[in-house]
């Protein structure tokens, strides 16, 4: 593949991912509630998976693929924990059932 095409696509994809991560961090900082922040952090994890995949594809190595597996495996734990924390506004039995 021609090097210039690879460079252009890398800069294009990397720039878009950088902008996406920056805008997502703005939402994490502004809130307004903790659930907004946790949704934004989930999106940030997806952006991170895309960025690691882009890096692995550009440099043609598979060193970071186990990181992708673990991110997709445990990425939802934080959202679930925060959701449980937020929704414990009822008594304990209701909380266990939820």
């Amino acid at each position, binding site marked *: *593949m021609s090097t210039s*095409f*690879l460079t252009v*696509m*890398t800069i*294009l*994809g*990397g720039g*878009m*991912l950088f*902008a*996406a*991560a*920056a*805008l*997502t961090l*703005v*939402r994490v900082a502004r809130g307004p*509630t903790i*659930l*907004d922040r*946790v*949704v*934004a952090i*989930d*999106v940030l994890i*997806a*952006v991170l*998976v*895309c960025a690691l*995949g*882009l890096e*692995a*594809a*550009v440099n*043609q190595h*598979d060193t970071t*693929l*186990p990181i*992708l*597996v673990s991110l*997709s*495996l445990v*990425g*939802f734990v934080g*959202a*679930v924990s*925060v*959701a*449980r924390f*937020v*929704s414990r*506004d*009822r008594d304990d039995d209701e909380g266990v059932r*939820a």
Partner: protein
Amino acid sequence: MNWVMIADVAGMTFLVAGAFLSLTAAIGLLRFPDLLSRMHAGTKPQVLGVLLTLIGVALRLRFGQDVPVLILVGLLQMLTLPVAAHMVARAAYRAGQAAACDLVVDEVGAEEAG
């Protein structure tokens, strides 16, 4: 023009498409007014964007031992994300945040009331 070059071009195109979806989701996350519509925007890169990226990585790496790992990443992503989205949306509803959203139909409230 051979197959290696075609796979490289297609792979990089898939990767840029996944990055573009991430960018659109970030813009939606910033612009949308309430939690449920922000979740709607945020699920696009979490499923389609990651899947496009994984297809791009598979087309670019082309090693046989990497493809099952990428399929595993995609499967785990699709398996775990609905759990998190379900929990977050239900927590938002029970905390009363969904009432501030523009709900047209409120099936959860109707079910819990009657």
